[in-house]
């Protein structure tokens, strides 16, 4: 079996201990079974060799493989890895990354306030972000390739993250585990095909997760985003908003599930998803699900899918704007309200550029 030999030589190149090779082979086995069963396969070569660029301010990055060679750290690194959220059996994608990953990092703030910029052009990676008590981490991601990212937030920790996805081959599996009074805020934008799975466990009281997403899908893009939020402690809160436009023959699928357990009294959850379809070939699938197991909650969701409002378009054109300019203005108005904070400035710039690119290319046609 070629895949198996590939993994054995990959593990050897990285100087990995036996247990890790064993973990990889186990993941490969799960992958083959699921792949056969689902008739679906992923190709490790398509994600390419690792190319990760990191800049750190007040934070550190450690290599998992370096830790494994350090007698004082290898046990803790191993236990972290073994207890990861994305075990191979989670999904086909998880099994794939666990079998073929070529890099694995630990990131952690060293000061109370830290910033990490991470740019990954390609590769298959596993990243752990550990935000200790009271620390505050700002994180800017520009990511392609396949990766598992796990975020661990201790009591009172906070994480502010902005993430831009723009590359055909993007597969992201994310997990966030939040302890008491911690908060995580994610702003993300998708400009291309991508598959993303997000799991949030609100494990500590008063923990808070919010996610604002914008997507622009065009040509034959396939965007598939899913978020699962588990409220497992009192007074937890989650807010998910997604807005996007689907153009040409693109397909956007947005799944979200908020599950509020019996013990999560006094929790709040709100899900909202709005998609604008700009072309008869475009398609949107939206599933905002709730599972609520106690009555002291406030949960609501709203969703809409539809075309651009003709009346608004007509109004703008009656004011002298040409059709494309009017459309551009309406799309901007629809999407821009999502990113309000200053932390999202660079994301907002990228979004503006992406919107004008659509109308530039269409007016030059």
């Amino acid at each position, binding site marked *: 079996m070629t895949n198996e030999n590939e993994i054995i030589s990959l593990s050897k190149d990285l100087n990995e201990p036996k247990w890790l090779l064993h973990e990889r082979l186990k993941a490969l086995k799960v992958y083959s079974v699921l792949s056969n069963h689902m008739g679906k396969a992923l190709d490790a070569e398509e994600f390419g060799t690792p190319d990760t660029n990191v800049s750190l301010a007040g934070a550190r990055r450690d290599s998992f493989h370096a830790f494994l060679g350090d007698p004082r750290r290898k046990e803790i690194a191993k236990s972290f890895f073994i207890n990861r959220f994305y075990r191979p059996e989670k999904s086909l994608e998880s099994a794939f990354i666990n079998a073929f990953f070529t890099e694995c990092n630990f990131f952690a703030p060293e000061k109370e306030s830290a910033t990490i910029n991470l740019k990954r052009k390609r590769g298959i990676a596993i990243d752990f972000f550990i935000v200790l008590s009271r620390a505050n981490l700002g994180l800017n991601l520009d990511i392609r390739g396949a990766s598992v990212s796990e975020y661990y937030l201790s009591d009172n920790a906070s994480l502010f993250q902005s993430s831009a996805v723009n590359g055909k081959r993007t597969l992201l599996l994310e997990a966030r585990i939040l302890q008491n009074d911690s908060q995580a805020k994610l702003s993300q934008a998708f400009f291309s095909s991508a598959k993303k799975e997000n799991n949030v466990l609100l494990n500590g009281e008063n923990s808070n997760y919010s996610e604002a997403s914008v997507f622009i899908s065009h040509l034959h893009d396939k965007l598939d985003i899913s978020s699962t939020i588990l409220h497992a402690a009192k007074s937890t809160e989650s807010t998910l908003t997604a807005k996007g436009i689907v153009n040409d023959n693109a397909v956007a699928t947005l799944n979200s599930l908020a599950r509020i357990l*019996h013990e999560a*009294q006094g929790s709040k959850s709100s899900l909202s998803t709005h*998609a604008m*379809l*700009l*072309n*008869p070939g*475009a*398609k*949107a*699938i*939206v*599933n*905002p*699900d*709730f*599972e*609520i*197991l*106690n*009555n*002291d*909650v*406030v*949960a*609501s*969701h*709203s*969703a*809409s*899918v*539809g*075309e651009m409002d003709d009346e608004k378009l007509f109004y703008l054109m009656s004011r002298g704007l040409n059709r494309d300019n009017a459309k551009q203005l309406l799309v901007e108005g629809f999407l821009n309200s999502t990113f309000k904070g200053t932390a999202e400035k660079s994301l907002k710039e990228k979004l503006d550029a992406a919107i004008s690119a659509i109308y530039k290319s269409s007016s030059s046609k």
Partner: protein
Amino acid sequence: MESNLHSSAYMFKSGKGLTEEIVRQISSIKKEPEWMLDFRLNAYKIFTEKKMPSWGPDLSGIDLRNISYYVKPNGKKEADWNKVPQNIKNTFDKIGVPEAERKFLAGSTAQFESEAIYSSLKKEWESKGVIFKDMDSALREHPEIVKKYLGTLVPSTDNKFAALNSAVWSGGSFIYVPKGVSIDIPLQTYFRINTQSMGQFERTLIIADEGSIVHYVEGCSAPIYSTASLHVAVVEVFVHKSARVRYTTIQNWSNNVYNLVTKRAIANENAVVEWIDGNIGSKVSMKYPTVILKGEGSRADIISIAYAGKGQIQDAGARAIHLAPNTKSKIISKSISKNGGQSSYRGSVKISKGAVNATSSVRCDALLLDENSRSDTYPKMEVDEDKVSLAHEATVGKIGEEQIFYLMSRGIPENEAISMIVLGFVESFTKELPMEYAVELNRLIQLETKGAVG
């Protein structure tokens, strides 16, 4: 209602479990035409091959081998009134079901005394060419219509329980309304003589020809006592050009029943379909009334409520499939969970390519009356066309304390305040019901929320 309280009262009762032989026997006892036997046998084969649904509530409590698939009543039903459980009799008392109806509902008489009203109504329908019969008579007397439509909207291959129903169906209603005929008074299962409509495997077929209007009402809010633990029905409704069908169901099965129903309607050009669906009792209900909007300008309204009490799972919802331009769907779903009950809204709206100017609005609200209850919402929206408008909204929560406080400050006791708020919550449903049904349902909700009718 094929209660088998007194099995000796039946002329024929199949053994337990289902075999091809039993399917053949059912068909031969009913003296059915060859094609119907083939239909049943084909469905039986599909039933044995199909898997149980992999989603939704746990159905492992159903023991398919331990069910009698056919019971032929011996003319009169003589289940013993004395053996009907006391709690059901009490509910009859409290919601004010007339004496004659009570015995009927409990399965101890085959009909209640409405024959005089029924026969005058019947004359009027028949003069207009309306056919309203039980399915078995319809198959005997109008085989060509039954053959043309049966199983074309819900084929046996649709799901395991549709296959089961197709293999062993018995009873149910058949309605044919000719072109341009409009019936003012709702057709009710109540009226039908020798009713077998509440059979375990009923099959209902409604055909509304061009421009006709009909309202069909099945069930009632009083509890239906059944010793049979499985109710698997299939309903097919064909609505031709510019016709209008409203199908109202109020069902309150006793809480040992698995109620698994496939309901589907197809709307042609400018037709209107309305499902009004109330699910109160049962152990587990799975029911998702569907409208296929096939003709341009057709419209669907689906309004449902579900009440899940102790030990009950109500997995209800609605589906609208838009296939043509200018189609409209509106879905309103309300659910109430109490005493550990679980209610789910599982819906889907699909707008296919070419269904330009389709609009759909979905609203689902859930009320949780205590901390041990559960409410799930699984709406699915799939849009394949840009010139459309689809909106969905949902809320889940408990009764606002300030609402209760306000009512109590006006001198209304707490339990009554809660009951008033719940009645207000389901009002968009009850206002669609015929008056006598609305009154009964309101009483029932009061009874369930307050523990007493005040």
